[in-house]
């Protein structure tokens, strides 16, 4: 039960204060394939280099730093010396451990022609990687120092599972309906109907009087006929 032993030890009186580390002569140099130096800057604790560093696909970046004990000035080889590359917008991160020599010097060379596996994907060229140095030790206070912002050439995004997109709302699909069958204007149909019925108008116009007399006499004939039939019917029924 190793873990439980360690926990019970921690109940002993607390270590008063651990020593502090300091980073000396932190410097970054960007050069291209011919060796021409594009940027050569010392790094400050308080400000990031501005503008941000940019690497093309053939450039090389070299970062050097020396880690010393703040009080005695002696070189230190801490347990953890990492470079962290982080893109907060796309949540891409890469961790690169650095080897610290016995003189406390650590260096990192990034050749974009052969980038190491620890560099994260950079799918978005407008968003730089924030590079920081993480120094951790069992004997000293830990130290996390942002160094510089770095624009790398665009890379393919980190692989996504083919079904990942189904775990979010999918794009809406609207059905394109066939257009409604077009009907001609009602006024045109009305004009057509008028044309079709126009012979009747002509007929009534030409035979106007004849039709009028015919309608009156016809009406009288129908009325007379109806009453005559009615009288005959009554007579027949009375007879029966």
């Amino acid at each position: 039960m190793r873990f439980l032993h360690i926990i019970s030890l921690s109940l002993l009186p607390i270590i008063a204060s651990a020593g502090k580390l300091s980073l000396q002569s932190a410097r970054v140099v960007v050069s291209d394939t011919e060796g021409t130096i594009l940027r050569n800057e010392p790094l400050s604790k308080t400000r990031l280099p501005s503008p941000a560093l940019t690497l093309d696909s053939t450039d090389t970046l070299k970062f050097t730093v020396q880690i010393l004990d703040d009080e005695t000035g002696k070189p230190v080889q801490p347990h953890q010396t990492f470079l962290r590359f982080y893109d907060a917008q796309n949540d891409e991160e890469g961790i690169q451990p650095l080897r610290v020599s016995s003189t406390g010097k650590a260096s990192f060379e990034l050749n974009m022609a052969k980038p190491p596996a620890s560099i994260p994907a950079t799918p978005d060229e407008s968003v730089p990687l924030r590079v920081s140095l993480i120094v951790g030790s069992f004997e000293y206070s830990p130290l996390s120092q942002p160094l510089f912002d770095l624009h790398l050439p665009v890379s393919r995004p980190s692989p996504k599972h083919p079904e990942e997109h189904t775990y979010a709302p999918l794009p809406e699909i609207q059905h394109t309906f066939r257009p409604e069958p077009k009907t001609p204007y009602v006024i045109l149909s009305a004009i057509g109907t008028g044309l079709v019925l126009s012979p009747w108008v002509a007929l009534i116009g030409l035979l106007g009087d004849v039709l009028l007399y015919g309608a009156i006499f016809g009406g009288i004939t129908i009325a007379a006929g109806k009453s005559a039939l009615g009288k005959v019917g009554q007579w027949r029924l009375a007879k029966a």
Partner: protein
Amino acid sequence: MRYLALLGSVLLAIGATFAKSSTGSSVLVVFDPKLNRQDYSLFFSGLEAYATDLSPQSLVQMLDSKINVIFVASPTNTPLTTLALEFGLTFSPPGAQLVSHFPERSSPHTVVPITAPDSKLLSNGTAPILYSGASHSIAPNPLIIPILRAPAESFATDSITEDGADVIVDAVDKGGEGLWAGSQIGVVSGFQTIDGARATWVGGPELFSDDYATQEVHKGVKSGNYQFAQDIAKWTFQETLTLKIDGTTHHLVGETTPREAYTTNDNVVYSMNVSAWNPETGAWVPYSGLTDMQLEFTMLDPHIRTSILPVKGKEGTYEVTFRAPDRHGVFKFVVDYKRKGMTPLRSETVVPVVPPRHDGYPRFLSAAWPYYAGAISTSIGFLLFSAVWLGGEFVPTKKGKSE
């Protein structure tokens, strides 16, 4: 998930405890039987011991039969860590444990306080969680739900003395085993199978220990371990974020009962009822909190995909009205709601869509008026002409009179 072919290797030394939650779903907690249950009384009291031979195949079969599992690995436990590969979780090499020198503290650097993330699985305001044990990298599998990730400055190593720095750097070199470091590495990860069974992988048992649950993270702030353990147990036990579909109906706008078949261009209303499990009351409660659910009207491919929204005033009911496409055929109402951490909701209802019947088309169009007028006037004209011809008198122009 593929079944690992471990060819008859049986994990004899795996202990397990079994529990039934209020939903009736079962949880199996798999951990090392060498651990003393008394040290974990806050969490494990109430679970019955269930020591048995458990092979990876049987553990995976349990997930298939809807038994949820909490896998508690440790830096040394190799059979479980090989099973983790099937879930897309690659554990750090045996012996490597999570170490973080941040924040500066007097407790051992292998006990790492991790700030609780914003997650729908965890309660708001959980205090930092103390963790020690193994860590794992997470594959881009959408069935994995990362619950707790390692802090950005942490890493996994077996060298825990100051002069162990070289071991760490060598791990990244060619031929090295790789370095598990940074915030992309997980410490507690959930996994939900397609059917909804849940598994949680925890890299070390100390997370559940009484010691960690009572320790202070900083002055006056107790660790959030107890709350965290409760939250992940509740999620794995299918008590939180558990949903089900109570029923689905469809009908024409203006009607209430479903039809056998719809006609093209009909306005159709589809509604469904969703409940969520409420762990406090121990019952299914109608739930209107899903804002991004979608309905697909599919015939081989979705013809329509639209969002189906909760109805105000009717708790748990979601409704959408849409116009059936002008293609006829056999369609399906498909709801396939998958979100990380929540039970998948799936429903398919088959419904035929037929073209309009002979009298379903628009009739008596205005364009036909001339034709109606023509036909009717021809009929009337014929009647009148017959009446005049048969009943009228015609006087010949030449000579004599007719009757």
